[in-house]
């Protein structure tokens, strides 16, 4: 890990701290209120707030996790820095696409 990756990993971690708290609070609220999928979708569809919140969350998680995977691979696999970086980039891009697809599914009408 170099200083650039270090800064990005810390930055995304700081970003995710409040987002994780909001996410957990939303889960508790939705389950304790007995909300159905239709109830939830009624609130999220067309909402710029939910789209922004989870869009940022997904982007931060994809960057953060791919840097972590890169570190794990360089230390625990035979891959060297460059090849681990390629694998981690593919992994992070996949996370980003899957996450944004999920966000789109709940915010787009």
């Amino acid at each position, binding site marked *: *890990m*170099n*200083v*650039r*990756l*270090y*800064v990005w990993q810390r930055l995304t971690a700081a970003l995710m701290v409040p987002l994780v708290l909001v996410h957990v609070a939303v889960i508790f609220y939705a389950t304790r209120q007995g909300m159905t999928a239709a109830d939830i979708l009624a609130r999220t569809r067309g909402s710029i707030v939910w789209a922004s919140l989870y869009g940022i969350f997904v982007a931060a998680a994809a960057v953060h996790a791919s840097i972590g995977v890169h*570190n794990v691979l*360089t*230390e*625990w696999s035979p891959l060297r*820095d460059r090849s681990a970086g390629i694998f981690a980039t593919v992994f992070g891009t996949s996370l980003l696409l899957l996450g944004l697809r999920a966000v789109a599914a709940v915010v787009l009408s």
Partner: protein
Amino acid sequence: MSDTRTDLTVSLWRGAEQGRYQTYSVPLRENQTVLDVVTFVQRHLDPTLSYRFACRVGVCGSCAMTVNGRPRWTCRTHVSSVAKRGRLDIGPLENLPIIKDLVTDMRPFFERWQQAKGAFVPSKTRRDAIEQIRPDSAPRIAADAAIECINCGVCYAACDTVRWNSDFLGPAALNRAWTLVNDARDAGNAERLQAVAASGGCHACHSHQSCQEHCPQALNPTASIAGLKRRTMGAYLKGDIKV
């Protein structure tokens, strides 16, 4: 003082990377150090045993070995404090190539000092006035806290990140870089911060603190590395270093 009470069972690593532990019986004496035990074996039991030492008083950093699974300076380690049920297992330092028996090749260790720009870069000539350094200035206090490294390699042998990441510069080299970063007389910090901010530099450290735990000089390389992380991050955000 020299009363021989009983014997100590000592297993010593013999051979290079491929080798085995060989057991010897050494008279147990009061105030005996682990280095005394190794020396006894070499002088009285097996003159082909290879090991490294120089000062015998904890200054030169030559005699570090793995003693009962932990890296230690053997000249300042009393047998009474480490022997378990009259037994000692002594091997070469880990994370370094073995040359023979208890002697490791220290070149990777010192090459990383070079990579971390661990050499002082003078900013003045002999004709300039001597730089005045206040002992109570914050940079000098930070440098003083890390300066007493004896290059024994114990922290390098104890470090998990060194074991896992072949590019990692290691605690001693980064600790050295931190002392120079805080040295007002040094003129090499642009290159030094660049070197320790690269892949395998200070940001590879997981802060396991094994270096601090095992350092015979009670230094804290983890704190030095944390200082480098902060300093390089500031330099990177200001655009002073590129990666």
